[in-house]
């Protein structure tokens, strides 16, 4: 942690980066994203099991981008990212949203994070995405901090099991999802925290014509949640932020995970793995299956 603080301070002192986006501790079991431009403020930076947020979301914010702009041109932004968050960076680079050369990625060697703020870090409270994690450190980053330690074995219980839901008959599945989506209050926290939801104007905010109803009745909620999942299919890197941010506890990552599985099954594509590949939905292959088509 001290190493990170020193390194970040150096970066800012040497003016190599315009700002450092990192985590600061607030309370015992909670961190908050922080944007640091003053080298002395770097002592606020922390790295621990409570660094839940995917800070990549900030890279596409107009306000943060404005920080990087200067008279001499665009300066770099340093971002603290867990190895799984780096997948979102890769996905954004693939989609030409950010450039690698404008970034300084400070990675953290990760041994898992908690499922939500306020929980004690142990096997019971391990975040779902960490259960089968195999990228505890990243080679894509400019520099990694912290030691690699073993992720605790997951001893908790997941509320929803993807394979169980897959086995339900269609009408039951629809009932299940409708019940879940009915809880939605359309606060759009899922959209706000998602690093890949970067549209300047979301389709749901467009009013002429209004494709997705802004009312949060069953129909509007169903449309919004399906379209959100669709727009992320083949793109979602599984950071799980949407589900964590949801105040109504809708299991949003079920849909995202299912779609990630499908993209792998149908096209052998995994999002955020390599910047060399074109994106899944932005490209095509003449040899794609014709099975669905009469």
């Amino acid at each position, binding site marked *: 942690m001290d190493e990170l603080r020193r390194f970040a301070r150096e970066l800012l002192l040497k003016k190599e980066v315009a700002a450092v986006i990192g985590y600061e501790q607030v309370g015992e079991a909670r961190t908050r994203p922080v944007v640091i431009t003053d080298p002395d403020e770097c002592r606020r930076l922390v790295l621990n099991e409570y660094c839940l*947020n995917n800070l990549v979301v900030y890279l596409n914010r107009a*306000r943060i981008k404005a920080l990087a702009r200067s008279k001499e041109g665009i300066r770099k932004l340093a971002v603290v990212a867990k190895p799984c968050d780096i997948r979102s960076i890769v996905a954004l680079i693939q989609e030409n949203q950010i450039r690698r050369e404008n970034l300084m990625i400070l990675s953290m060697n990760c041994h898992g994070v908690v499922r939500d703020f306020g929980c004690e870090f142990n096997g019971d409270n391990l975040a779902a995405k960490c259960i089968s994690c195999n990228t505890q450190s990243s080679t894509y980053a400019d520099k990694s901090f912290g030691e690699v330690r073993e992720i605790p074995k997951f001893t908790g219980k997941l509320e929803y099991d993807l394979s169980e839901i897959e086995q339900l008959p269609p009408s039951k599945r629809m009932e299940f999802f409708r019940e879940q989506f009915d809880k939605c*209050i359309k*606060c759009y926290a899922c959209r*706000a*925290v998602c690093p890949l939801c970067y549209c300047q104007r979301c389709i749901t905010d467009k009013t002429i014509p209004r494709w997705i109803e802004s009312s949060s009745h069953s129909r*509007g909620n169903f449309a919004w949640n399906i379209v959100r999942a669709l727009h992320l299919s083949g793109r979602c890197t599984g950071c799980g932020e949407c589900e964590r941010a949801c*105040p*109504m506890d809708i299991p949003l990552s079920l849909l995202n995970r299912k779609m990630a599985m499908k993209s792998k099954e149908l096209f052998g594509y995994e999002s955020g793995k390599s910047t060399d590949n074109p994106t899944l939905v932005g490209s095509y292959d003449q040899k794609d299956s014709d099975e669905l088509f009469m």
Partner: protein
Amino acid sequence: MTEEKLILKEDLLRICDDVIKKGDTLLAPGKSEYVIVKDVSEIKLDPEALPTKISFKSYVFPKSEPVLYYKRSKNDVTLIDADVNGRKIVVLGAKPCDTGSIDIMKDLFNWDYRDEFFNLRAKHFIMIGMMCKTHDEYCFCTSVGCSPVSENGSDLFLIPLSDKEFALRIVTEKGREFIEPYFRFLCDADTKRTEEVLSAAKNPETAFDPDEVHEWLGRNFESPKWDGIGEVCLSCAQCAFACPVCHCFDIVDEDYSYSEGRRMKNWDGCQFGHFTLHASGHNPRDIQSKRYRQRINHKFRYYVDKFGKILCTGCGRCSRGCPVSIDIKEIVSNCKD
């Protein structure tokens, strides 16, 4: 008119059962929200539970409701009013930081226009508040004039004396009317014991003085403090939608077909970028720092100026649920020189 009685938990549940059997709606705090109780065995009545993730606001001010139905013909538009029949809703075990919320919102909904929908629903609410015996680092009810033992807004107020007994205070005439048929369940109270429990309430520390905040906000509209928050906040409306007193709404028309449809009233939140977007394309609150400033100013300054009430109950929901851990208590406490 406060009158105190003693009631056993099992008798209280019997009353609840009767409420459900009569077909009235009984709300109680559930896992993450207030839920409609179908069976009394679901009722927990835990004074040590933290506030639910969202308040019961949606039962008095639904997240989405039709206002009218319309049909267009060649030269004419026919309108049909949506009619609201307020039904009796009994809220059991509401936190003191929730019970006062309807009174706070009432001023707004009866200001330049009397909102029938809100008033009718509010009129039929029976609020059974309960003393709160816990707080966490996000609670600050004592800073905004509420407290864990506040009876403000409650029709009946419960004070848990033990696991099995409650002291029941009859606060309003509405509360008395509700409890009158069940008087046989009530026995005389031991006010001394109640006072003991009340005085042992764990008050969250006072974090700020609302008058000072009000004064500071008036002077610091352009303070650079807002910029820092604007960088971190991601512009979702979790804070507004979870808030028991945030009341902004949006009116949209929804078509069934080309010629007919309905007009809906939906929740809206001031943190959305398009909340203040004008048809011309101009947006007076174009960046997040301005939007967050609006949120704080509205709660602690504008509403106070207009209605003499703070638009905040100190429940801490917005901070607890914020995806990026922005803490309203911390921000408002820093509203000083």
